[in-house]
């Protein structure tokens, strides 16, 4: 049995495509058997809704009269500094950017109530954003100061371009020390007081296509409530990791770089996020359709929480000091039971990734496809697999000698 994306698209256009979520497929395929299920099901939809720091927006704000060159100048959006090392009126707003006067962790733990991610959320909500520019002035761009309100609707372009999203599996954070620590994995209480995890498990996009057989460059996706595309493999993409018999990576592995027009995204699916004592970020909603081209592709989508294992890492010592130690591996089924065993201790678990929102995304994408509003795309190139030789390297430091 094999299908093509073109054939599936024909069924989608006729409103005849059979679409199930990555949660629903587990029971359906177990009941019918993978062979029959692969024949009947055309698309499996996945979803995830998690903080993803390597997210940001390229903005073209339009030319003022007289002209001003933002490139090389200083530019703020709602007091958040944006990157100006681009052409005259292009800037990049990163999710983790903070106001210059934010106390950071000077008053520990810092609250980080407002940052780049929050500006992105407010742009999508159509709110007025304060733009402040100081430039050096040139013959062709003479103006040196600009203060104005802008909205997403008024500016020329707003391109969400996230260089690392949708991590294929992630670590579980715990704290072995005797004081509370404030990390990007949330507040971790002392002496194994809690354990935090951060993927949607059986609904997670790349865990349903562990060897990147169908998700590739050019794959059309749900991104921030609108349409986006896989632009490239994400930074730190690391296909060459230990895997289970079923192909599930046992540690963080593949990643995706995603791109999409911010102007068609929806409030609620890009949420400005504050990690106490750590910083600001953006919680991103992503859903990826898996075309069931073969029984093999379907079998991978049958992955359930019991098949996914993640390493438990001490964020008080092993993580910050780059030590390879792991405190064990636990399954997502165990994580979702509310408690895991670490070093013989019963540790309560919590998620930083919203499973209810992941379910909602998978269902929205399912509806779009069933209604014929969302056609699948053929990838133009595959994501690098284990054979690519790509590895995730630590920084090699070399001393800088004084001249």
């Amino acid at each position: 049995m094999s299908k093509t994306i073109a054939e599936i698209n024909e069924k989608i256009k006729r409103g005849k495509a059979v679409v199930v979520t990555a949660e629903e497929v587990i029971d359906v395929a177990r009941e019918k058997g993978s062979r029959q299920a692969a024949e009947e099901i055309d698309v499996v939809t996945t979803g995830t809704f998690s903080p993803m720091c390597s997210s940001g927006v390229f903005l073209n704000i339009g030319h003022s009269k007289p002209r001003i060159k933002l490139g090389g100048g200083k530019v703020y959006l709602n007091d958040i500094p944006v990157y100006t090392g681009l052409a005259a009126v292009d800037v990049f707003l990163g999710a983790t950017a903070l106001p210059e006067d934010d106390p950071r962790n000077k008053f520990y733990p810092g609250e980080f109530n407002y940052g780049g991610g929050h500006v992105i959320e407010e742009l999508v909500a159509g709110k007025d954003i304060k733009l402040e520019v100081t430039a050096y002035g040139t013959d062709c761009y003479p103006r040196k100061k600009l203060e104005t309100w802008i909205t997403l609707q008024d500016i020329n372009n707003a391109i969400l371009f996230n260089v690392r999203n949708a991590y294929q599996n992630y670590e579980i954070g715990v704290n072995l020390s005797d004081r509370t620590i404030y990390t990007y994995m949330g507040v971790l209480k002392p002496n194994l007081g809690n354990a935090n995890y951060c993927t949607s498990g059986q609904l997670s996009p790349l865990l349903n296509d562990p060897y990147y057989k169908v998700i590739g460059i050019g794959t059309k996706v749900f991104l921030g409530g609108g349409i986006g595309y896989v632009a490239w493999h994400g930074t730190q993409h690391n296909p060459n990791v230990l895997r289970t018999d079923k192909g599930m990576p046992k540690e963080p592995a593949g990643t995706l770089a995603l791109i999409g027009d911010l102007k068609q995204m929806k409030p609620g699916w890009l949420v400005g996020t504050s990690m106490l004592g750590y910083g600001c970020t953006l919680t991103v909603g992503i859903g990826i359709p898996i075309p069931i081209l073969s029984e093999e592709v379907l079998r991978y989508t049958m992955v359930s929480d019991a098949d996914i294992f993640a390493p438990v890492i001490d964020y008080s010592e092993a993580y910050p000091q780059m030590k390879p130690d792991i405190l064990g591996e636990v399954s997502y089924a165990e994580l979702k039971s509310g408690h895991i065993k670490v070093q013989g201790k019963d540790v309560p678990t919590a998620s930083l990734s919203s499973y209810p929102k992941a379910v909602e995304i998978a269902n929205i994408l399912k509806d779009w496809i069933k209604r014929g509003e969302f056609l699948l795309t053929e990838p133009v190139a595959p994501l690098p697999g284990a054979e690519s030789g790509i590895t995730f390297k630590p920084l090699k430091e070399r001393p800088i000698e004084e001249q």
Partner: protein
Amino acid sequence: MDVSRRIVLHFPPTVTGQPVVYRLAKDFDLSFNILKASVSPGEEGLLVMELSGEQENYDKGIQYLTETGVKIQSLSQDVVRDEVRCTHCGACVNLCPTFAFSLEPKTRKVIFDHSKCVICGLCVKACPPRAMRLYF
């Protein structure tokens, strides 16, 4: 008719030695849930609690408290969840000291049981989308 209110009781030093709360329960058939307590004999004490019972008994209980010299205020702080901002990630679930948060088993949505909240404020700063608000 039943009522349930959250109140702050200030005990003058002369009253802290008396079994005031015991009498609220025994004489007026009121149930109480202590949210915060700082009561030492001989010093001014503070008790934050939710007091529930029949309206008539509740009024009598409050009258009794006033007569013993206890100063009563309605609770001036409250923790409220912004239902629109909450993304149901669950980061709060294992941080709350009084287990006011739990997961709805089927949907994994976060349930906030307001009656268990002691208004410590721990969740307010730890909530990634800042959905928990402290009101004064």
